[in-house]
């Protein structure tokens, strides 16, 4: 039998997963989850605000506890794995990255919109100079052609990244579109290739496997499928599937199931599911992190969250533009009120 293929897993329960809890993880919860993940054999354990270091803001929602406290909590319990953080240039800064490094972070995910990799140069270079492993993420990958992804991935490679991920932030990619993007990236760069999936169209695990078939060796996932929108690729399901397909992840299946069931699920405020709003996001290709913000804004102004999301799509909004959701909901509510009040409507 040929040698088993190893897949590197980054668990983002304590980063992307925090979207689903509106960034309300406590240090005590972080320590419990991180310890469980570490003992289950997770290679990289990511802890940050959902929108990355420095994301605790009015725009993206304030974290319950400071990043410093959460990173310290994780760092103090991780023995085998590596602590990872996320940074989105434009939101977090080099100072945030230095703080994370000082607290023991060994892996930095640096994420940009799929067409804007050049804003990450200074952060990738800084992380490398501090001895960190760098994973570049091309967010909203469905908005970039395979050629664009190859071109932007090359930039990240030039800046010093060790891995580049096709990042399906909207959960909008399907097996054929994952395949062509991962293939283009793999053909363009010498460094590692990976995939970060969202489950808005129920494709996260399947897309991850397609990515592996095309040469990806790095996958992001979250226990219980926690995460923005309909959540990420569920770690415990992914581990089971990888195992059945004969790939090695170094993760103990029973233990990761236990972490999901016994530690993470009781912390969850509500189940992550494919609801009509998150399904609309996958269908229309809207950034998954907008979900709870869109729901809240729609409720505040009495409009349908799907109308808000469709308008977001029309405006071509990219990751980070959570600020426009309230404005869109407010404008829609005004329009609705005008329609209600217009004489033609009453006649009809």
């Amino acid at each position, binding site marked *: 039998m040929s040698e088993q293929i190893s897949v590197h897993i980054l668990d983002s329960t304590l980063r992307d997963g925090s979207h689903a809890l509106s960034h309300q993880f406590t240090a005590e919860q972080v320590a419990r989850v991180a310890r469980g993940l570490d003992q289950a054999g997770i290679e990289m354990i990511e802890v940050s605000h959902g929108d990355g270091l420095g994301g605790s803001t*009015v725009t993206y929602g304030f974290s319950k506890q400071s990043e410093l406290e959460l990173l310290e909590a994780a760092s103090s319990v991780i023995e085998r794995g590596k602590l990872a953080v996320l940074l989105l240039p*434009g939101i977090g*800064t*080099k100072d945030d990255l230095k703080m994370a490094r000082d607290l023991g972070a060994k892996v930095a995910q640096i994420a940009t919109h799929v067409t*804007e990799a050049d*804003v990450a*140069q200074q952060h990738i270079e800084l992380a490398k100079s501090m001895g960190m492993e760098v994973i570049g993420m091309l967010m909203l990958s469905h908005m970039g052609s395979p050629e664009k992804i190859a071109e932007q991935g090359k930039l990240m490679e030039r800046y010093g990244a060790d891995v580049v991920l096709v990042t399906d932030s909207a959960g909008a990619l399907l097996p054929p579109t994952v395949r062509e993007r991962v293939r283009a990236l793999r053909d363009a760069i010498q460094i590692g290739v990976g995939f970060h999936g969202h489950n808005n169209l129920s494709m996260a695990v399947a897309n991850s496997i397609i990515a592996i078939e095309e040469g990806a060796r790095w996958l992001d996932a979250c226990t219980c499928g926690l995460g923005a929108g309909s959540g990420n690729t569920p770690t415990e399901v992914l581990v089971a599937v990888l195992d059945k397909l004969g790939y090695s992840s170094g993760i103990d299946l029973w233990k990761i199931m236990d972490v999901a069931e016994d530690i993470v699920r009781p912390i969850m405020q509500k189940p992550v599911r494919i609801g009509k709003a998150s399904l609309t996001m996958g269908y229309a290709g809207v950034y998954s992190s907008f979900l709870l913000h869109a729901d809240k804004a729609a409720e505040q102004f009495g409009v349908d969250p799907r109308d808000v999301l469709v308008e977001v799509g029309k405006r071509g909004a990219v990751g980070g533009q959570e600020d426009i959701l*309230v404005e869109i909901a407010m404008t829609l509510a005004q329009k609705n009120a005008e329609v209600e009040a217009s004489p033609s409507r009453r006649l009809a």
Partner: protein
Amino acid sequence: MEQIRAAILGSGNIGTDLMYKLKRSHSLRPTIMAGIIPESEGLARARQQGLAITTDGIEGLLNKKDSFELVFDATTASAHKQHAPMLRAAEKIAIDLTPAAVGPYVVPLVNLEEHVGEPNVNLVSCGGQATVPLVSAMRSASPVEYAEIVATIASKSAGPGTRQNIDEFTDTTARGLERIGGASKGKAIIVLNPAEPPILMRNTIYGIVEESDPEELRKSIEEMVGRIQEYVPGYRLRAKPLIEDFPGRQQKKVTLYVEVEGAGDYLPQYAGNLDIMTSAAVKVGEEIGKHLRAGTWEKDRSEARL
């Protein structure tokens, strides 16, 4: 009125746009543009507009130092760091549009008067020019505990300098919100959006302010918007100021949506982020000009203080 004569250092997009705005100014007159690329379109346009030109950069400019009082530096941060001492030695006032920040940050309508006499002033950042005045307007109605802004600009309007050092934008703008806007704490976020056709610059401004009269806040904000529009005609609120109770605390949350459409002098209209820099530069130049005419801009005051 005696016009104050201005030099433009840098013949790129910013310098060229600035030239057209200066041509329209009643109190300033552009007399010379300095570049280093002889075939640059900016220099050709400057010549067409009747300006003297030099292709020898700062040296060429200083060879003709009797033809201007003010210098607008629209080159790069590293170039301006070299230009600044040379301009100072030549006793020229520098208005710095680069991120070099050799001199103090200035935002017209807010803090220029605090820096009378400075030989060199810096224009913060596009996000700072677009948002600091409104934070300051909130501040004049009520103490601002926290100000946060999200500036979203068209990818096409972000040059390589901005992209290679995006932290400069976030750090500088946040400090501007604090030191000039008067917020106890500031945070700035920038998002580049590649949509086609390119989007106009937009800024969302959040202020967490102490319990105060919403009407007074609204009035102060709207008044400031009107005053900004006098020098940035494409500056507008996209919606009425949203003023809500801040959950759990005796505070108000103010949300403002601002859009900046450029005048399209040379830069495209969507690049409101660049237009607001050249517009603010002209406004600062005009205010300095008033002082120069009145004899109240004491060039050596900042040195005398040492």
